[in-house]
């Protein structure tokens, strides 16, 4: 088979510790990047870019963020929607106050603001664990959304409480607002996701990531071998919120264009991202992408196949879609409780041993 590492000798530590030690993995990643940046924008129309790939990439970034916290560090969080809202409202305020800074720094800055807020709400994690922590983050969800809905300063005293992203340009191309070019938006978001996915992959396999995993697997043992829970847990909250904040900023400014806090960032948002990482695979970068793809694309795909392809009635299709997605989630969790990423890993193992499985 093609996927075999025989003959790939690693002569030094650098090779051994490479991000993708197996050559085929490197080729696959490079090929995916090539497809993402060179082929997809040429191949797909506006509908695919705007309505399917943008939300997929943005949710993948949010899922990456939650995966850092829940998958790698083992801290269950139900506040994802609220942290996305922090990112969205930060970028909105920044875009209206200091637009001259440029869009990319503003998104990163709103990620940092979210990181600060996330760290604050992560403080209880030092004392409470598991489901009880989930309840504490749930408080963040309700409190922050209430705050953004109540205090006029956050939405510039707009009569309806909606925030609308003003048009901004990057290298002379409009990337936010209604006249933004879909291809430019796609490149921007794909760039963000690619860079930060690589960053996440790196951080997860290094010292910090290992600290997180030690805390996740058994926090008392981790403490005994010298991992400091305060720093490990809070850094997980900070990094995770940083990602989720950036995802929220892109979600609002690039994809939706305008948003109201109660609908765009409600508790369903938190559950959606949580389902993504559970289905995709906890503690896996690839899993975040697979989960986001599953949860974002599956409903749209089902709808398009049924309504446009088979000519099903729209309402009936919507009901079938709800049922199918639910059944698929349960089915996947029974067949593979460790998520889609685990399936991929098994497939990889099989391919390496083929044709002599024993």
């Amino acid at each position: 088979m093609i996927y075999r590492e025989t003959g790939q000798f690693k002569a030094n530590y650098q090779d051994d510790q490479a991000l993708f030690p197996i050559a085929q993995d490197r080729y696959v990643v490079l090929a995916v990047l090539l497809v993402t940046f060179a082929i997809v924008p040429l191949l797909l129309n506006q509908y695919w870019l705007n309505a399917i790939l943008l939300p997929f990439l943005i949710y993948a970034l949010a899922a990456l963020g939650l995966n850092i916290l829940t998958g790698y560090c083992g801290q269950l969080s139900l506040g994802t929607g609220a942290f996305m809202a922090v990112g969205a409202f930060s970028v909105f305020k920044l875009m209206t106050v200091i637009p001259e800074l440029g869009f990319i720094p503003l998104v990163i800055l709103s990620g940092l603001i979210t990181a600060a807020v996330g760290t604050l709400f992560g403080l209880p994690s030092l004392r409470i664990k598991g489901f009880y922590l989930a309840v504490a983050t749930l408080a963040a969800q309700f409190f922050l959304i209430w705050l953004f809905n109540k205090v006029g300063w956050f939405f510039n005293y707009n009569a309806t409480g909606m925030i609308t992203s003003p048009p901004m340009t990057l290298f002379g191309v409009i990337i936010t607002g209604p006249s933004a070019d879909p291809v430019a938006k796609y490149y921007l978001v794909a760039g963000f996701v690619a860079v930060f996915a690589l960053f996440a992959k790196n951080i997860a396999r290094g010292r910090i990531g290992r600290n997180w995993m030690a805390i996740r697997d058994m926090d008392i043992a981790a403490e005994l071998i010298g991992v400091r829970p305060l720093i490990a847990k809070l850094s997980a909250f900070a990094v995770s919120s940083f990602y989720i904040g950036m995802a929220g900023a892109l979600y609002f400014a690039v994809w939706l264009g305008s948003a109201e806090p109660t609908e765009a960032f409600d508790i369903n948002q938190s559950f959606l991202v949580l389902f993504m990482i559970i289905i995709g695979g906890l503690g896996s970068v690839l899993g975040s992408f697979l989960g986001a793809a599953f949860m974002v694309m599956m409903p749209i795909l089902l709808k398009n196949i049924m309504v446009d392809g088979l000519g099903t009635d729209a309402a009936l299709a919507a009901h079938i879609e709800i049922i199918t997605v639910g059944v698929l989630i349960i089915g996947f969790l029974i067949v593979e409780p460790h998520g889609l990423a685990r399936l991929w890993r098994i497939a990889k193992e099989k391919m390496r041993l083929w044709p002599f499985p024993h």
Partner: protein
Amino acid sequence: MKTRSLTKTIVAALMAIPLFCGAVSAYELTIPSFDYRTGPYAPNGIPFANGYGDYLLMLNQRDGGINGTKLKLTPCETAYNTKRGVECYENVKNEGDSGAIAIQPLSTGITYQLIPKSSVDRIPIFSMGYGRTSAANGKIFPWVFNFPATYWSQATVFVQYIAEKEGGMDKLKGKKIALVYHNSAYGKEPIRTLESAAKKFGFEFMALPVDHPGQEQKATWLQIRKERPDWVMMWGWGVMNQVAIKEAASIRYPMDHFIGVWWSGSENDVLPAGDGADGYLSGAFHQPGDNFPAHDDIKKHVYDKGMGLGDRDRIGEVLYNRGLVAAMWTSEAIRKAMEIHGTNKVKGVHVRDGFEALDVDEARLTELGLPGFTIPVKITCENHEGPGKVALQQWDAKAKKWSLVSSFYDPLRDITGPLIAEDSAQYAKENSVVPRICN
């Protein structure tokens, strides 16, 4: 990777579908219908979608479309969810030969999303009596139409009705008026208007939010019981309406002092409260009932052929008629667009001109089989709200019928005018829109 190749296969398959289906066909006008037959807003979404679709199907069956050009009704399920609405819009905007020719989003949230997109994609939005109120200013929002009246006009009409019942505008002083509203962009719409009306007429105004979806309102109504406002207005939608009316009945709030917006006044909203809902009021801009010639045509040409979208005995419900009137105005705008541009192959950009030249008077309504059904509407370049007139209807729980109980009031334009100017100017500034010149 695996999923990607799978996706690509499906992409290819989906892209191939139109090749098989749409090879030969006459020019059709794509009219999207943003339905919600699922979720907490379905009780209200279903009758509207049925009325909207049935009328257009009737035109197809009876007249072969508009001036012989068939209409293609394209439903898309939004579940009243903004994100799904945007997906529907992206999906439908280039559908068919004509592309989407007019969008009826049926959700204030979705309308807000689509307003900036509409001018880029050149598709008119007809947010009939909902959506962004300041879109009434056609100089800044050339692509959006919200006739026959806006939420702000409606709020001032309610204030006038209350004043009339209390015995004059000066009697409003010291009265307490509460607003129970859906805590979203939709529900917040009337707040500014009511605040400035409160300042002008000296009544006390209190705003009580109800969070989506509105099933839990005990605290809200407890507060109303405690504060005892003289009048309660409601900006609700979906399941929130039923719950509010039931709660009001359970605290024995006088129903004839409880006024809902026109989205809070259909059969679905009052029936669950039973006799308790008797006397409940709501805004309206058209008649309820199925005793118009157009309804007979729908029964004859659509339901007798088994093509009806809903149940035959629910034709003529308030929201069914709301959908019907929306379809009527849309089809009239298309007719007008064909007349202006001298072609039957119109697109969204032409239909916008049709909306702007729309003039449906009583004589035309009679021709359409809807005599006295609604108010005459005339749209101009600067005024996209049209007449702005609103009447009130009342529920009779014994007869299980709505009926109009007031004449059509004119809105207090001295209150809404400056607010519309201010809000649309802010939009123009934020989005760098240059107001166009109307002559």
